[in-house]
């Protein structure tokens, strides 16, 4: 391996690790904490050091992505230990939403199709988890999540097949109709779905014993429980993003981008148009279902009316504002989703707008809609795209 060869790199990393471990043992209150802290820091340093090896990203792309994911998860999981329960809760909700955004971002960016039905696919995943858990309470969580993903992919297949030949507006129309019909479908099977009232999970998701032992006896249950929820969601998000990053770069991803840009060329090269489109649709709906499934775990319940056309429009808006077809865009969108109500209420409080009046209630919508229009007109690549452009310009300037 290359990093063994560079003497200075090795000794610098080793020195940093020693220093980190020493500081950790001085600061951490008890042995268990020290070990956890030490592991977290070592992973971070090793990971970053690996990533900064010149050319590593090009020669070992999958490994590089995995390392990046591990480092990001490392920092995030570490942070959840210190966050308050409400922050962890919002973080979890936002992370799950970013998975949904990533799916739609892929569909729109990589394969050029538009879908207004992603809230319904979220609903499919959310209901799948709730219905399954109510009938088979002992299934491990991972399996339940996979079942939800499979359901989402299946419904995506059902809708994706007729959609292969549709142009933009007609596809938008079909997915819109699906989003609107979702509530009606749910209400046609109330004995399974609970109708408008929805379903609760039979048992709440609780942390395993070894995690609870990290906290002293007086720390509230709420803190521990929400930290665990945030951790699960963050790990699943990391895995989902890792898969998507690889998909983007793979042959399938390239084929889809070709279909988006030049159908004729794609066909000439031998890409099957319908197949590429359906796969893209299924991936996007599977991701949406995963996000919805996580919401059910976090909320411990599912409320079908949440998955409305309005939510679909919100999802589309966040994808556009974050940046179509980019991974960082999905993350940005998730953060915006988690904190937009807080930002807006902060704004109304500090500008003297009546917080229960008409303007305050419509402000999120007006701001969102306005952002959507402005983004699409002036910065169609979203925040992530804009940042990338600035970064690229700086790089160009840096070379002599």
């Amino acid at each position: 391996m290359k990093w063994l060869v560079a003497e200075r790199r090795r000794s610098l990393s080793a020195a940093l690790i020693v220093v980190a471990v020493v500081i950790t043992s001085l600061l951490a209150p008890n042995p268990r904490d020290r070990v956890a802290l030490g592991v977290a820091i070592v992973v971070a340093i090793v990971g970053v050091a690996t990533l900064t090896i010149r050319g590593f990203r090009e020669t070992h792309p999958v490994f590089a992505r995995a390392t990046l994911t591990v480092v990001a998860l490392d920092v995030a999981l570490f942070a959840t230990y210190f966050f308050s329960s409400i922050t962890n809760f919002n973080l979890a909700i936002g992370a799950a939403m970013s998975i949904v955004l990533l799916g739609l971002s892929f569909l729109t960016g990589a394969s050029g199709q538009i879908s207004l039905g992603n809230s319904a696919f979220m609903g499919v995943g959310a209901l799948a988890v709730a219905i399954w858990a109510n009938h088979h309470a002992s299934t491990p969580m991972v399996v339940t999540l996979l079942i939800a993903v499979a359901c989402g992919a299946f419904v995506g297949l059902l809708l994706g097949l007729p959609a292969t030949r549709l142009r933009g507006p007609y596809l938008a129309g079909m997915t819109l109709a699906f989003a609107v019909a979702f509530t009606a479908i749910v209400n046609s099977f109330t004995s399974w779905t609970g109708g408008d009232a929805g379903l609760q999970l039979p048992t709440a998701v609780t942390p395993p014993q070894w995690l609870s032992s990290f906290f002293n006896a007086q720390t509230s249950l709420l803190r521990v429980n929400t930290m665990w929820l945030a951790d699960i969601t963050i790990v699943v998000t990391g895995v989902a993003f890792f898969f998507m990053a690889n998909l983007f770069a793979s042959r399938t991803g390239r084929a889809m981008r070709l279909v988006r840009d030049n159908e004729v060329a794609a066909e000439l090269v031998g890409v099957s148009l319908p197949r590429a489109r359906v796969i893209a649709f299924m991936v996007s709906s599977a991701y949406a279902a995963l996000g919805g499934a996580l919401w059910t775990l976090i909320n411990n319940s599912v409320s079908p009316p949440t998955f409305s056309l309005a939510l679909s429009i919100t999802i589309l808006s966040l994808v556009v504002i974050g940046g179509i077809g980019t991974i960082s865009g999905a993350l940005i969108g998730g953060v915006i989703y988690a904190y937009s109500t807080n930002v807006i209420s902060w704004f109304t409080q500090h500008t003297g707008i009546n917080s229960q009046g008409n303007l305050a209630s419509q402000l999120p919508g007006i701001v969102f809609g306005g952002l959507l229009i402005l983004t699409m007109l002036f910065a169609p690549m979203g925040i992530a795209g804009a940042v990338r452009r600035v970064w690229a310009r700086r790089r160009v300037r840096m070379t002599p």
Partner: protein
Amino acid sequence: MTRGELDMRKTYARRLATTSAALLLSTGLVMAGGSVVTAGAATHTPGVTASQITIGATVPLTGIAANGYNEVAKAADAVFMYVNSKGGVNHRKIKYILKDDCYGTPGFGCTGTPSTVTQTHALLSLPVFATVGSLGTPTQDSVRSLLKSNGVPQLFVNSGSRDWNNPTAYSGLFGWQTSYNEESKIFAKYINATYASANVCFLGQGDDFGSDGLAGLVAGGVTPSDTQLYSVAALVTTQGASLAPYIARFQTDKCTVVVLDTIPGATDAALGAALQLGYAPHWVISSVGSDPVTVFGPLAAKGLTADPEVGAVSFSFLPTPGSSSAWIPWMRKVLTADKSQFPGFSSTSTLDGNMEYGIGWGVAFVEALKASGKNFTRASFLKTLTSTTFSQTPSLTPLRYTTTDHQGLNGGYLVTVTSATSAKPVDGKIYTTDSTSTGPVVSAKKLSSGIPSWLK
């Protein structure tokens, strides 16, 4: 320096920068967090200090269900503020935090966060001693296990569902109002007595509200010939039009009595549809959706001058605003004193059912708090709650919980809507029953007694 050396220096610099950043970040987190980890929650009862008790609720202050319902918790808060102005309960003032969950439904002017789970998490992080008077059946169902797993009592849920009466699974969960099931049994007795052998149709909400109500009707001896359940989401998206086919069916079925277990918005839609069809059955409407002011308001805004609800029969477990109960002037006094939430409320303002409802359980909470003594824990408070009979509250029947029954009130009287702003008792007789499906409906004298001296 060659280009290659320049690049290598940049790489080292960059790596140094990133690893130092990682190290600093983690160290910073440790320093910041160290104190957090060691400082656990205090060993005293959460939400309670020597001078204050903090309680909270998730209620629809704005949004789809706000019309009328947003007054309920505010009226209870008026009671708390009144009691605080007299020194509090056992020298402890009550701080009541309201979180707007828009009934869990986004849109329609919602300025809160339309997720009951999120808002409940926000309350729990404050922390609160208990949630008191949160509103809604599906909304409160969705947070039962969250509150249970965190040991937080869920008191006086504003809903008549039987879901709150499950002491074995949820020992800290309590309802307050007379349940839909009991109300419907009393309706059935009335229908059998007044409209013997009539064709009865039933329109109910597609959740516990409708199904419990229907079960109560049947248990009380009235089996509707046509039963329809409506979805709130569909009602909302079609702006009421989704109920028109159901009312049309009732008309085709020739039902002369229609029982509505509907929220006010659905009551409006049903009355409107009947008007359009020229259909005028005898309406029997649940207390949930019959308050005259709440029902007629939106209809008046659309241009209706005559109130189609006049003549409808409903149910009340609180004295009507025009009654001679000593509580009515007391309620007015409390609301008038609350200048922030009921500005301009005076002796001539309309006292409506929602305000009475909030004051009803507000008084119950205050009395339970007093009965718990100066030093209490969550456990001891709940024990007091299940071993005391509260007969000096505004409700027509005493409030009594046991270790096996957490439902709450168990009776009331029938009222008829007389105008756009008022309703009167039908015969003044108070009926009580229970939440089993076969309990008898008993007619009783007025059972609640007056205002305790320390509240006057």
